């Protein structure tokens, strides 16, 4: 039974891991379907969105960086492209194309050729409806190694405009005082590193039909 499989693995560690087929290859990796908060490591703020639109640029829903660690509006869901390629629990590989969907509003992390309001970099917005936006919602996870590990700081490079998701520290005033501007910038530097923080990380499941009985 499935419970016996797990017990064996715990007792005999790596030795018997081969018997239980399908045990995850990268236990600390971020997987598709997971919901998480992303921390910009240089500025210690979390990627965030809310029902507040930009007053300039595209006028779409704004994306900011917030200091609070307990705001539910900072949760993003990791999904593959719209071809259904990334199954629930599959670890995200370095170099893989993903979409980040804002959990509370259902809009995808998006960027396009509009200037950002404070720093005149490229505006990053939240776009779409119920998780479906357009081709400018796709980002490549840049990291060293095979999979996107939760402890690692990674970069997000936009497919289409080639910019990196970044924060350089500019702050908004009222009504979102203290929140930082999130924008896209063309150069890779220490402003575009992000780390997975709080969240719900889904592990790969065994295929129910093919499970080996022990």
């Amino acid at each position: 039974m499935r419970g016996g499989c797990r017990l064996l693995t715990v007792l005999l560690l790596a030795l018997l891991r081969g018997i239980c087929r399908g045990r995850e290859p990268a236990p600390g990796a971020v997987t598709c379907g997971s919901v998480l908060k992303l921390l910009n490591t240089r500025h210690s703020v979390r990627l965030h969105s809310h029902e507040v639109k930009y007053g300039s640029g595209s006028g779409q829903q704004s994306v900011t960086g917030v200091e609070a660690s307990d705001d539910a509006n900072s949760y993003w869901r990791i999904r593959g492209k719209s071809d259904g390629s990334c199954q629930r629990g599959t670890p995200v590989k370095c170099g893989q194309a993903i979409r980040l969907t804002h959990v509370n509003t259902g809009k995808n992390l998006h960027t396009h050729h509009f200037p950002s309001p404070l720093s005149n970099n490229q505006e990053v917005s939240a776009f779409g409806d119920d998780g479906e936006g357009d081709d400018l919602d796709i980002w490549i996870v840049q990291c060293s190694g095979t999979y996107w590990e939760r402890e690692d700081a990674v970069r997000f490079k936009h497919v289409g405009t080639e910019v990196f998701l970044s924060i350089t520290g500019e702050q908004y005033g009222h009504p979102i005082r203290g929140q930082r501007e999130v924008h896209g910038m063309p150069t890779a530097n220490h402003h575009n590193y992000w780390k997975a923080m709080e969240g719900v990380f889904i592990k790969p499941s065994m295929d129910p039909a093919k499970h080996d009985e022990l």
Partner: protein
Amino acid sequence: VLSDEEKRKQYDAYGEEGLKDGHQSSHGDIFSHFFGDFGFMFGGNPRQQDRNIPRGSDIIVDLEVTLEEVYSGNFVEVVRNKPVARQAPGKRKCNCRQEMRTTQLGPGRFQMTQEVVCDECPNVKLVNEERTLEVEIEPGVRDGMEYPFIGEGEPHVDGEPGDLRFRIKVLKHPVFERRGDDLYTNVTISLVEALTGFEMDIAHLDGHKVHVARDKITKPGAKLWKKGEGLPNFDNNNIKGSLIITFDVEFPKEQLTNEQREG
């Protein structure tokens, strides 16, 4: 309804400073020239009648499941990393609220002012902790059903944490279509089979074979009902729906040769 509550909680944070515990605030016309359309919701929300215990936000996680998992059930392990309030040295201000204070300016003259008043509480800091949760996908589960984990949502420093809810999203299957507890599938047979009969096995969601045998003529669009070969009922797994097979007949693409006409 829930999303209204979450939006309301978020916009509390953007209101006037000093309001920290879930009270609604009226923002008036505060607009910065960077932002248009500051949309948010007020609304009587029945869940928060008891204002004395503020609550953190709920988190809803969509859990995609395959039809195979709906048939056989499955377990999903999940690691929850969340901020937890832990004791810290010192004191902090908590339960801040606005109160009206009356000050005496002179004999018979009073002034009422609004003041922010806070209590003192032991200091807390938010520390990230991890634990593994297990969600069971029960056989027969339906799209939209939720599995809640009480207290695993967002914390609230002055109150209780919200809940974590997994919402089931059943994915489309390439072969079977679900309608309630019944499964629908299409099978294509050749013209010869349609006229003279056939036998075949259809692979079901857990791999077992469903045997189909016909010895009569099968018209295009004919349906065959297989009772008990559908999905298990969520409330009673022993009851299963039916599998309905619709037959499509494949006609030859090119004209028949003389030999084929004879045969």
